[in-house]
Every structure is written in C-alpha cells, then in structure tokens.
C-alpha cells in the first residue's frame, strides 16, 4: 500500500494534497524521525539511554508487543478489534510454563502447543464475530474475561518460577544473532511475512477491501466473513507467539501474567498509523508503533519520571497520533475536492 502511494506521485505535479497524503502514508518514517530526535534529547540527561545494552533491552521487550500488534493490526484493518489478546497471551504463557514445569512436554513441543492454543482462542473469537455476528468489541471483551477466567482457574494461586523452566529456555530473551536480539528477529520475521501476505496475496487484498468498503466487497463477492475469521485466527496465533515470548522474557509466570497489555497493543496499532475504522495501515507501522511506545516508556523512566506520568503521556501520544490522522485526512479530502472542481 505504502509503495503504490509513493509511486503514484512520481512524475505528477505534487499538489498540497499529494504531499499530505504522502506524509500520511509515511507514518513509519515520521515515527523513526521522532525516535531519533527524542533519543538525542534524552541521552543528554540520561547517557545510559543510547547504550547498546539498554537499546536491545527496549527493543526485545517492544518486540513482544510488536508481534501481538501485528495480529491486532490485521484485525483492525478489517474494521474489527480484538481486546482479548492479553488474556490469550496470559493463558498461553501460563499453559506453556506449566507443561514445561511438569515435564509434560519438551521445549519445542511446549512452544508448538502454545502457538496452537493461541490459534484456537483466535478461532473462537472469529466464530463469535462472524457466525454469531456479535460486534467484535463486545465479543472480544467477553472472551477477554473468559480467557482470563480460565487462566485463573488453571493457575489458581500457583506461580511457575524461573527454576521450573528447562535450563536455557529463557536465553532467547537475552541472546542475539549478529548483534540483533533474537526477539527483534522474531518480530522482523513476523512483520515481513505478514507484510508480504497483506500486500501480495489475494487474502491480503481482501483484508483491505473488506475493511475499506464492506459494501463494495459484498458486491464483488468477496467472502468477508471468511476473511474476518482468518484475521482473528491469525491474531490469536500471533498472540500465542507473544505469550511464548512472554515466558522467555519474564521466566516467572502466574495467572495474572500479561494483564493490561492490550492497551499497549492497541496503542501501538493506532500510533503506527493503522486506521481504527479499518481499510488502511501497515504491519510495519504497527510494529514500529510498539517500538515507539517502548522507547518512550524507557526514556521517561530513565529521565526520572514516575509511572503515573508514563500512563498519562501514553494517552497523550495516542490522542496526538489519532487526531493528526483525522486532521491530515480532512486536509487531503479538501485538497482533492479542490482539485476536482478545477
């Protein structure tokens, strides 16, 4: 999508509207630019901010959110939302940890089991939304509660300690290949595969079509319910991946693990430029949104701001991102209208 937006303007007289639409479609660039500027400013008062060890820690943590945000972004592009992601992550994390602690499965099998569980939970969401026709926001609010409830039931007051996991299981959270943290590589793989699917497959095209114009999709005979179901399934699968990463990152897992994460995930998607009403946005944007939020959180802590400020600033960032979208959209529409009249 981003690609075609850029090439379209090549050779054409660049009017105001086209410039703006380029900016709108280059959310990824502006995020990176802001991060660079911010990094420079923060490192003045907190020199440890720009050290490789701090950066790779920030990136690893953000990669977990990024993986979940990619799944969420696909769902949001179809004009839906999945609020249950954090419960899926938590339940997957606990189940993976407990089967490992009890030596029921070895590490690869436990990971596969975790991903499968995530997929199934996503499919449940998909069925509720497409077959039972419950609006996604309500359906996934329900499953958020249900999945978390199951998590509590299964876990009880038990906590899987780091020592309960097989030796070396949590190493990927700290290791890197060629200087790149493994979690970042995982997120990169997810973003690349997801982007190729969205940009260059029939399914991908249909995801955008369904989210952008459901009536047109219906007239074209696009199986919108199948598309939405698939989106939820993929989102569940990727939440499963994020759940497994969560186990590796934190080691100590109980029934409340990953509580509250959905806010960061949805925030990452929105900040990353995915339209909350569907139809547009990129997975790279969503992943960068996750990195951006992680970056800000880390910077604020290093500068010495309290947790309270962190929450408030998170909120401000989201509002700024969304209102910037609305503003740019209105400008584009006006500029386009002017051009048509001429």
């Amino acid at each position: 999508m981003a690609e075609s937006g850029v090439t379209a303007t090549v050779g054409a007289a660049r009017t105001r509207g086209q410039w703006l639409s380029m900016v709108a479609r280059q959310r990824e660039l502006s995020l990176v630019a802001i991060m660079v500027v911010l990094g420079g400013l923060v490192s003045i008062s907190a020199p440890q901010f720009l050290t490789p060890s701090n950066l790779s820690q920030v990136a690893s943590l953000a990669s977990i959110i990024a993986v979940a945000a990619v799944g969420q972004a696909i769902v949001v592009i179809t004009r839906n939302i999945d609020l249950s992601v954090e419960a899926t992550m938590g339940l997957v994390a606990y189940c993976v940890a407990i089967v490992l602690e009890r030596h029921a499965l070895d590490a690869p099998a436990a990971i596969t089991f975790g991903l499968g569980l995530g997929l199934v939970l996503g499919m449940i969401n998909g069925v509720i939304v497409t077959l039972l026709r419950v609006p996604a926001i309500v359906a996934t609010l329900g499953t958020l509660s249900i999945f978390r409830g199951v998590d509590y039931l299964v876990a009880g007051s038990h906590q899987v300690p780091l020592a309960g996991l097989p030796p070396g299981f949590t190493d990927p959270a700290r290791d890197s290949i060629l200087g790149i943290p493994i979690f970042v590589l995982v997120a990169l793989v997810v973003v690349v595969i997801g982007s190729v699917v969205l940009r260059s497959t029939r399914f991908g095209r249909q995801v955008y079509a369904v989210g952008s114009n459901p009536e047109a999709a219906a007239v074209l005979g696009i199986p919108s319910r199948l598309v939405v179901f698939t989106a939820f399934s993929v989102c569940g699968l990727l939440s499963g991946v994020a759940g497994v990463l969560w186990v590796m990152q934190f080691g100590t897992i109980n029934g409340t693990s990953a509580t509250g994460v959905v806010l960061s995930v949805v925030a990452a998607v929105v900040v990353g430029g995915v339209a909350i009403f569907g139809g547009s946005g990129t997975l790279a944007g969503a992943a960068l949104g996750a990195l951006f939020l992680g970056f800000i959180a880390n910077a604020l802590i290093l500068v010495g701001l309290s947790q309270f400020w962190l929450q408030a600033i998170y909120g401000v960032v989201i509002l700024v991102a969304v209102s910037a979208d609305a503003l740019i959209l209105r400008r584009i529409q006006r500029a386009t209208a002017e051009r048509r009249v001429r």
Partner: protein
Amino acid sequence: MTTPVVAPTAPSVELRGISKHFAATAALTDVSMDLRAGEIHGLVGENGAGKSTLVKILAGVHQPDSGTILLDGETTQIHGPAHSRSLGIAVVHQEPRLFPDLTVAENVFIGHAPSGRLGTIDWGGTRRAAEALFGELDVQVDVGAPVRGLSMADQQLIEIAKSLSLDARVLILDEPTASLSAHEVERLFTIVRRLRDRGVSVLFVSHRLDEVFDLCDRATVFRDGRHVVTTATSELTTAELVRHMVGRTVSLFPKVETPMGDILLEVRDLAKVGVFRDVGFSVRAGEIVGFAGLVGAGRTEVARVLFGIDQRDGGEIWLGGTQVNFANPSAAMHAGIAYLPEDRHQEGLVLGFSIAQNVTLPILPRLFPRLLIRSSAERKVADEHTERLNVRMTGVDQLVESLSGGNQQKVVLAKWLASGPRVLILDEPTRGIDIGAKVEVHRIISELAASGLGIILISSDLPEVLAMSDRILVLHEGRVTADIPRDRATQERVMFAATGSVAGDDHPTAGTQFTGDVTGGGLDG
C-alpha cells in the same frame, strides 16, 4: 378537485430568483414561485429537476447562492434547520426521521417539551399535549408507546403532529406517499386538507401525478433546475403536466446501430415480495435495454437480484439458454454478468486502492490462481482495460480517490470489463459526472454493445435512455408498465408509464382522464 375554504390570500412564502450550484452542477437556476396561506401546492418534476434542493433550501439545510426568500412579505434568510423550524417551516420526509426508542409523545415534543415547576420536563403535560394534538388530527395513537414498530404512515403523522406543536405555518411534504397504502394515503390527505383549511401553506412534492390532481390547488413544474410553470390544477390536464416535465433537449450521443444476436438473458415473472413483481424481459447480444422509471420504482432492486446480491422470491432467470440461480455475486460474475452499481463510492470502488488494485479486485482468483499477486501482471491487465476506456490518469498506480467522478466511473467500468462479462448491467452510469465524460461513457456503452455484449442501462436521465436504448422497459412501483421499442419511444410515453398514469398509448392527449386507482394501490396488494 376541492375548493379551499379559506380563500387564497397573499403569499406566505415567496421565492425570487433562487439559484443554487453544487460544484459545477446547477441544481436550481433563477427559480421564482410562491406558496399561499391556505393552499396545497404540488411540486412535480423528473428526478434531478431540483425539487429536493428547493425543499432543502426552505428547510435551512442549504443556503441559496443568489435570490431572496420572503416570508409573509419580509425578506428572510434561513440560516439553518433550527432557524427554519423557528420560522414556522416544517418538513415531513418520505422516511420520517424520528427517534425509534423514544415514545410518540417524546418525539412530538423533542426539544420543546412543556416544563414543570423546577424547569424539569413535565411528562404528564407532554403526554396530554400530544394526545390533544392527535385528537385535533382525529388520529388514534398511543402516545406512550415507543415509535419503533409503528408504520411509516403513523410515523409521518407524528412528524405532522410535531409540526403542529411548533405552530408551523408552512408544511412541506416530501414524497410522503411513496411507501403508503391507498388507505393510509387517504387518511394523510384528509389531515392535510384539514390543515390547509386552518390556513397552513402546504407544499406537496410527489411523483404521483394523480395525487397532485386529487389533492393540490395549484401545481408547479420544475425541469432541470428551472421553474417551468405554475397553474391551478383545475386548468391542467395530465398530458400537459407530463409535457411540462419532459421536453428536454437531447444532446447527441453516438449510438451505433448494431445487428442483434441471440437472446443472452431472459427473465420471467421475477418477483421479490414488497419490492417488485411480474418482471419479465429479455436481452439480446448487442442490445441495449433501457430501464426507465422514477426513483424507487424497483429498477436497482431487479438488478441486484440479477447479480445475486439479493435473492428473488419467484420467477426464473435464463442465461444463454440455461436456467440460473445465483446465490451470490461471485456466481453471477462467473456466469458472465457484471453489475456497475448506482453509487460508485459506496459499492463500486475501494477508494484507498490504486486503479490497478481496483480493476483486478473481482478477477484476482482467476488472474492469480497461485498464492502471490504479481504487480507487473496486475498492472498489465489494468493498463489494457483503462486504455480501452481512455481513463485520464498519471498511471494505474494512482489512487482512485484522486480521480474525477467521470474517471472513477470509467475505472469501475474497466473493473467489470476485466471480468469478461456477457451481460453488463449499468446502474445510473452517468449520474454526477460532467457532460464531456458523459458523452464518452455513452460512446463506450455503444461500443460494448457493438462488440456483442447485452446491456441493461438503468437511468433516470430520460434523454439518455431514449438515445441509447434499443428498447425501453418502464417500471412503476415494482411493475413493468411499458415495454417500448426504440422507434416508438418518446419522452411523454415513458414519463406516462413511469408516473403510473394511464398510458394514452398512441395519443398521449387522449389519456388525460385520470383514474386514481391505477396507481393508488401501491405495493401492499
């Protein structure tokens, strides 16, 4: 024809030289007319004649570009809907805009409910006042019941009661009878006459000419945004009225004479409950069959059934000699039917997509049976079809949202042509595009027919249907009222059939005697 009890007096509303443009299109040009206290004034005209624009100007939705509005002789500017209401102008729409979850009484007094001692709403008083209003109208309604579930006719009466509660001096009824049964229409008319006798000015906008004659004291005809005539209905015949409505100059469209082939599509007794029935026609290869009729006549609904978007309740569809039944649009597309929808933004295009992405959307599975989409192949297909249609663009990677209306319409056409159809259904293909693009679309339609496609052309633009079609099917309220071959098609004949007037077959003037029951029945029968 009824004689008003209150003698027509000075105009309560007077319009002088009203003009209104939307972008490049003139909706109203230099329109002058007046509305007297105590009269029912009919406003008629084809689709797009400017009736709704006038209604919206009086309702404060639009401001005129030029001209003056006089209320009781005083120059007035109507700033917005609320201002219009406070000036005593009330509009009752075809589909009333009420709050379905609130009660009848709450809806009547929304925004101006009687208040109690503490400034709170006096619910008892509201109820009693609402009951009194409906008593005045002589209508039985439970004012405590929620509006949801009430019939369209009852909802309109609530709107009328609301206008009474606001002491409206001017009541505008915008196509009020389109979805009412004959009995409901009669009840509405009785009430409207009663209001007229109380001195209210009523503007009655309708497509049903028999109703205009039945109800109105005077009638005004609009054509192409201009005022044509205002006369007393007693001095007018249906034929004259129809002639005033049509008679537009026909610009030259390049219609190519094409030899016709075999029957491609045949439809027998097609029916959808409450929407249309007994629809039958056939389309040959190379033939353009025009669907004429007024908005709401059921033309688009027939097309949606043919394309598998909606399902029929009865009848048969034969395509190329075999009976077909399309469960969804993909099935219809596979069988060789393409449908260019009426609203290209709503149903035709994905605006955030490039031209190429839009063009290939319906044929992706065929174009790329394997998993991946190759952009080069996609562009080639898009290039081929957009070139044929002469789409003005910087390239097929351009986003469709940045194209003009005419070029967007060509992209929709290109999209459907890419699917290689045998029968092409075009629903209002030239609505809202400029004249140059229009002529070009007509050229394309002719060429497509010449290449052997069967074409169904749904259009409210009468000259367009007449110029393009080999045969014209006229629908009125869900039924085919005429099937006219090209050489016998005239604007008058089509308009007669479209308004459900008695077809004065070869002598339109002979059909002036009006029999209301031909059209009065609606669809409830």
